[in-house]
């Protein structure tokens, strides 16, 4: 009876130990599995493969603490991301300040033409509602139409995927210089387009008025009875009027082949070249008397005045206004 009880107690203790050992093995297995699972999860996030059991056995796995290693690496990644975000925020603020300070209207569009960003100048250039601008298409906001205009800069950039510059885009009677640049992703696809608008209405208007005045001046010079000529520093003729052509007998298309000294009588050339030098130094010559040489070789005495126009200190052209001297007037040859 006693032996039976003792055997029974021993069996119970052994069974208990076996049971405890099994429990501990199961716990360790669960811990190792947990470490493997979490380590693999983190490694996958790092962009690499899971750990294979043959690479790290259970004991080494616990000893090397891979979760701790990857966690420390993630802490550094987060620190770096934080610094990066701060730098991006500063860069964003700098870009915003630059965009606000320049006198050019700027729109950032996504690939479906919707406005993603704009600067203050664009709101000043076009009658835009700032509250509803983001998300509107450029077409609706700027062109004021739901259909694409034929000369749409955005469409052109999306088609060619290259920068495009439209030098005279007209909208509601106003003129604009429009420059567009695509922003591409790493696959070369255009994700955004930046459009920069510069109003050129006053410049275009000024140029038009200048052209009109230039034409009036040309008409006046063309029709006066005095001989008018404009000569560049290399001796070519920039302009001669009708009286000049009639006096010397040249046709309009022959003028471009002529040089200034071709129409000066040989005995007057030296003096004329001296006059030319004086003019190139900015002086104006009054009552110049010389002899011109017509196409058929006839010498014609003329008198007049010449001056020279300059740009940035460089001579552009001489402007001469002459009248033909009647017989009996003193010519340079007579003087000498």
């Amino acid at each position: 009876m006693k032996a039976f009880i003792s055997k029974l107690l021993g069996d119970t203790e052994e069974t208990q130990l076996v049971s405890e050992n099994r429990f501990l093995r199961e716990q360790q297995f669960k811990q190792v599995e947990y470490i493997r699972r979490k380590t693999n999860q983190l490694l996958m996030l790092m962009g690499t493969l899971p750990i294979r059991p043959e690479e790290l056995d259970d004991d080494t796995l616990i000893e090397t603490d891979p979760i701790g290693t990857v966690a420390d690496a993630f802490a550094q990644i987060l620190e770096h991301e934080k610094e990066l975000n701060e730098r991006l925020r500063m860069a964003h603020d700098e870009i915003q300040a630059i965009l606000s300070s320049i006198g050019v209207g700027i729109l950032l569009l996504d690939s479906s033409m919707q406005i993603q960003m704009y600067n203050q100048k664009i709101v000043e250039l076009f009658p835009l509602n700032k509250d509803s601008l983001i998300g509107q298409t450029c077409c609706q906001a700027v062109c004021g139409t739901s259909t694409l205009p034929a000369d749409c800069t955005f469409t052109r950039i999306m088609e060619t995927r290259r920068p495009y510059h439209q030098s005279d885009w007209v909208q509601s009677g106003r003129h604009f210089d429009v420059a567009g640049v695509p922003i591409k992703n790493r696959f070369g696809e255009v994700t955004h387009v930046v459009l920069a608008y510069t109003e050129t209405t006053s410049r275009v208007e000024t140029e038009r008025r200048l052209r009109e005045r230039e034409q009036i001046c040309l008409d006046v010079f063309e029709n006066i009875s005095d001989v008018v000529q404009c000569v560049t520093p290399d001796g070519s003729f920039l302009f001669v009027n009708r009286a000049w052509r009639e006096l010397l007998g040249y046709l309009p298309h022959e003028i471009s082949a002529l040089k200034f000294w071709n129409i000066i009588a040989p005995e007057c050339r030296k003096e004329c070249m001296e006059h030319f030098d004086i003019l190139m130094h900015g002086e104006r010559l009054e009552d110049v008397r010389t002899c011109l040489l017509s196409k058929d070789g006839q010498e014609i005495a003329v008198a007049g005045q010449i001056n020279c126009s300059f740009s940035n200190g460089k001579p552009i052209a001489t402007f001469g206004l002459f009248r033909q001297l009647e017989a009996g007037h003193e010519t340079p040859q007579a003087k000498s």
Partner: protein
Amino acid sequence: MEVKEIDMRGQICPSSLLTALREINANKTALRSGLLMLSFLSDNRDSTATIPESAANMGYGVSVVKEDDSYRIDVFAQPTEMEIRNS
């Protein structure tokens, strides 16, 4: 600048990555200040992608050079904002 060479030839990813990360973590201060450069030697091609990518995500500069029978992966401090602007 001190250069610490770590020979990982024979290891494959992800073990080599874990070794590299452990070294980078342990030498973080010296690396960040530019006093130390870690130079990993590996003959595992996958490591030439995983280690540089992880190190770059942590804010380090990385260069990979193919040598005779292995790759040399150098991890060093990235230039500062001021250095980038002045360069």
